[in-house]
């Protein structure tokens, strides 16, 4: 997708805009959510993103990292990115603190298919940090409940300590979503579900599978078996969407880092319809 069509403030997609960190929330070990304000008022006013898109965060002298948007402030003027400490850029970001400044360009990439979700039941399946790119879609659905069917959120994490956004699950339930959470490994005191995410798909209520849209984000193997469970439950392949975030570098389909078969994940993805990428998912090491 052309970034310009998604409301990128810049005519030049290489141009990074200054942002300031206005808040940091520690989520889980090694994972924090950064609230960012575009410092140029006009750029901030024109900036629009769609659920599922990502920005390139630019730390001068260090490098850039592609990070999905995990939401925006209620006033809409601040962007949220949930980041796991992984490499040079994210470690430098972690060293900045509130008030720190750096660069941002975007948004880039294909969004979740919110139009297709309209009028249908939606199942958002996430594993680990995969809940972050799904959160804007979840918020969009819960903010317009009359426009969508039943929202079910199935989420799996490594341990109870790694559950992302745990503080908002009660609100999601309060707003009508079914939220089922599982962990791969239990810890003492955990009273919730133990087991992998695809098991939740096997067991969930699915009254109208042909009219249910699945939005899936997590490690490849998790997505593969989640898709398998959804297909077994009668969900059509063309109603299953996966987020294939990987190795995005230039964000405009030029450098080839993120090439996945004939697709460039940064511009043709990261959100892709399952039936279109299914043959490539079987190719080892692609």
């Amino acid at each position, binding site marked *: 997708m052309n970034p310009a069509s998604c409301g990128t403030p810049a005519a030049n997609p290489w141009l990074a805009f200054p942002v300031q960190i206005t808040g940091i929330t520690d989520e889980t070990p*090694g994972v924090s959510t950064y609230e960012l304000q575009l410092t140029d008022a006009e750029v901030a006013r024109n900036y629009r993103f769609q659920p599922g898109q990502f920005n390139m965060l630019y730390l001068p002298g260090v490098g850039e990292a592609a990070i999905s948007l995990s939401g925006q402030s209620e006033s809409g003027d601040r962007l949220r990115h949930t980041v*796991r400490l*992984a*490499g040079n850029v994210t470690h430098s970001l972690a060293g900045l603190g509130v008030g720190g400044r750096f660069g941002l360009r975007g948004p880039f990439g294909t969004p979740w298919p919110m139009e297709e979700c309209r009028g249908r039941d939606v199942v958002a399946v996430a*594993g*680990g940090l995969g809940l972050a790119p799904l959160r804007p879609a979840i918020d969009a659905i819960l903010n317009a409940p009359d426009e969508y069917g039943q929202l079910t959120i199935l989420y*799996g*994490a*490594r341990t109870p300590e*790694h559950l992302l956004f745990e503080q908002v699950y009660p609100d999601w339930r309060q707003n009508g979503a079914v939220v089922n959470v*599982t962990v*791969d*490994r*239990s810890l*003492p005191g*955990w*009273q*919730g*579900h*133990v*087991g*992998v995410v*695809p*098991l*939740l798909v*096997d*067991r969930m209520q699915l009254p109208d599978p042909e009219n249910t849209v699945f939005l899936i984000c*997590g*490690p490849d*193997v*998790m997505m593969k*078996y989640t898709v398998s469970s959804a297909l077994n439950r009668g969900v059509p392949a063309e109603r299953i969407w996966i987020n294939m975030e990987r*190795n995005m*570098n230039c964000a405009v389909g030029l*450098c*080839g*880092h993120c090439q996945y078969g004939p697709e460039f994940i940064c511009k043709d993805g990261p959100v892709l319809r399952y039936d279109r990428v299914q043959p490539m998912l079987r190719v080892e090491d692609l």
Partner: protein
Amino acid sequence: MAQPDVMQRLREIPFSARLPEKALTDLAAIAEIRSVPGGARLFREGEPHCCIYLLISGSIVLEMHVPGRGKVQILTIGPGDVLGWSPVVSDTVMTATATTLEDTELIEIQAGALLQLCESDREVGYFLMQQMAAALSRRLVATRLQLLDLFAETTPQQPSPL
């Protein structure tokens, strides 16, 4: 004589939904619906047990005892799952302890009667064991996925091509 709604319940559970009518009728004759309150122990690790269960609603936690760590939760069983197959596939003791996490409804089948049914009617036995193998296969895959520790933090092993 089967309880009136056992047949209906068996038709709704994936394990038995596709069984031929004859197999379903025979299975219903040795099955019983049970309601169990939360916190009840169905069977205990290391002890023999006589029944196999198909879960209708509720949830059950499976725990194994690890010296020095105590009871470790290994899996939560949910609606549609098969539970406690040890007495059907072998005559050994149970490999985990099963406790209901909430009020739970399940179908209880006497393992001895089930094996007898499979022996007396090999066609029914074939269908039932086919379903049992499928359930075991699903559980095996789920266990493998747990072992893979997919959400562990990893760093790419391949260097950047540029």
